[in-house]
């Protein structure tokens, strides 16, 4: 994903501001562009009620967007300070990184970011405040959330499979004729092809590395407690990757 040319960024900003008229460009520096203001919306979802809300938000667009996605913050203290999916500085934790990228890919513009990630988050929060549960479910904190996303998205049977998948993506990217890392015995093309391709295309080297570390740490903890066993081949692959990326020196 290349950095956006100024013109392209401007046209994405224009598109965003023409639909969400309460927002404005607040600041433009070498490192980021900040858009902020009021975000009123009327949002509906299948099988759920329509919710009208309005939040004061700030969107910080880094200068390497879309390689790095924007950060969103709620400014008006409308979201409870102890709400789990919000950091103490007001930044909203919209999704597990790979899921955030996958959703963004469906409409990879600033407007898409707002309509498909920020508004659903705010809808979810409003719903949660009213009814006490999240309408679109919530991801577990930290590495577990990352891992569960892989398991849900690929319908994997266990955590070791998730580790195999992330190692596969790390070492091979997308290879249609390799054995599918889910362990089915089929080749990728005949198995999880489309899903793996989607993951591969939406990962940046940064997100892939973080997911690898996260899933590995989660599995390592379980292995230590005897809740999981890692097959030798997988262990060797993990060591290979660790060595290659110089995360850990293994002699």
């Amino acid at each position, binding site marked *: 994903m290349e950095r956006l040319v100024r013109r392209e960024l401007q046209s994405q900003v224009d598109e965003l501001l023409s639909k969400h008229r309460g927002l*404005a460009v607040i600041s433009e520096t070498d490192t980021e562009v900040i858009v902020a203001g009021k975000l009123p919306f009327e*949002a509906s979802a299948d099988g759920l009620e329509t919710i009208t809300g309005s939040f*004061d938000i700030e969107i910080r667009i880094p200068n390497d967007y879309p390689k790095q996605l924007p950060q969103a913050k709620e400014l008006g203290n409308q979201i409870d300070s102890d709400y789990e999916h919000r950091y103490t500085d007001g930044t909203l934790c919209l999704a597990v990184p790979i899921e955030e990228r996958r959703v963004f890919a469906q409409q990879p513009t600033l407007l898409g970011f707002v309509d498909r990630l920020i508004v*659903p988050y705010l*809808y979810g929060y409003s719903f949660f405040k009213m009814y006490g549960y999240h309408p679109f479910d919530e991801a577990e*904190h*930290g590495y577990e959330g990352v891992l569960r996303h892989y398991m849900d998205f690929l319908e994997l049977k266990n955590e070791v499979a998730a580790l195999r998948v992330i190692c596969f993506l790390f070492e091979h990217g997308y290879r249609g004729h390799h054995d599918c890392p889910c362990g089915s015995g089929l080749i990728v093309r005949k198995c999880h092809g489309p899903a793996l391709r989607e993951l591969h295309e939406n990962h940046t080297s940064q997100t892939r590395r973080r997911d690898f570390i996260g899933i590995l740490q989660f599995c390592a903890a379980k292995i230590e407690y005897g809740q999981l066993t890692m097959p030798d081949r997988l262990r060797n692959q993990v060591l290979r990757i660790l060595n290659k990326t110089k995360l850990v020196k293994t002699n």
Partner: protein
Amino acid sequence: MTIDTKAFSHFLEQVASEIDIPPGKYQQAVERYQGVGRWLEEGIYPECTGDLSIYPQGSFRLGTVVKPIRDGVETSYDIDLVCELPLQKSGTTPQSVKAMVGSRLRENRTYAKLMDHEGRRCWTLEYAEQEGVGFHIDVLPAIPNPRGLLDTAIAITDKYENGYSWSASNPRGFGEWFDRKNQAAFALAVTEQKQRIQRNASLIFASVDEVPDRLVRTPLQRAIQLMKRHRDLHFNNRTSNGYAPISIIITTLAAHLYENELDVYSTLSGIVNKVQAHAALIEGRSIDHSLATRGLIQRRPDGTWYIGNPVNSDENFADRWHEDNHARARAFFQWAEALQRDVLHALSMEDSRVLNEHLSRTLGASAVTKHLGLIAPPLQPQDVPRIHIAEPAKPWRDW
């Protein structure tokens, strides 16, 4: 679209209170620095006969606190605490005064952990707070330095490359001068404000009597807060960061120029317009006679600048303005002009989006957006975007 000045003034008042320190946080700050004060008071200092005098100076004393902001992020509050030891100047040195206070602080295990490196004039204690923004307390060791019997002037310690020296200061005197300038407005505002504060923070203050005077804000104090915040944002993204006008200059000029206007807008525009009227000095031209006579900002024959401390004319707040080809002087007037344009001229802004952009850029989106409804018309129902959610992500948290 023109905005009603009354509505705009109310808006500015609200923005100022957003960037102010909330009453609960203020109480927390007071507790913290009183704790430090008590510890210092109970120390034993060689050759000290008598009590220490410990008191806040700067924005906490004057009631002009603003949430500091750096790179768009709010950083910790800055509390200046003077620690005056009853010593004779002839009987001690700045180095030993500094050291005495430092070692007393370090005797306390908690403070020792909070202490940063030695500052030029102070010892800094960094408090991270669990909720929201933290504090740092700068403890300034000092001794009395009176020029006369009732003089509150002090000498503070100044560390430079080769050693320590004394530096003149008079925070108590300045505080009293400021209070006098603020007095009439304070008397008008106090009852109504204390009632409001007590109502909004009834868990902290059980009755109006418990609300400290230091939480009352007159239009002068509000104007100073807005000017400081505008300054923080104006210099944030520029290389001219080091030349930003210091708060004491902003406070002094504002207090001098305040004419007891009753609302924030009139106060701010009065101050800024009169400050800007001095801009001709940059080019060495003369300014309006009545302003020149007051001598608030002076350009001397040798080209250097003078803004006197109202309680000590020997102290020149603008003593560095001529450096680097008058960089600070130019930065000051450019900033004043920007303030005029950004805030005062907002009244004639055409578009509510442009208005939002301007005000947010210059005063901070977080403080402005919340109160924009006071001056901009709300979006019509048909303008509210409709969004259908399909395949949403699950919210997460990194840890």
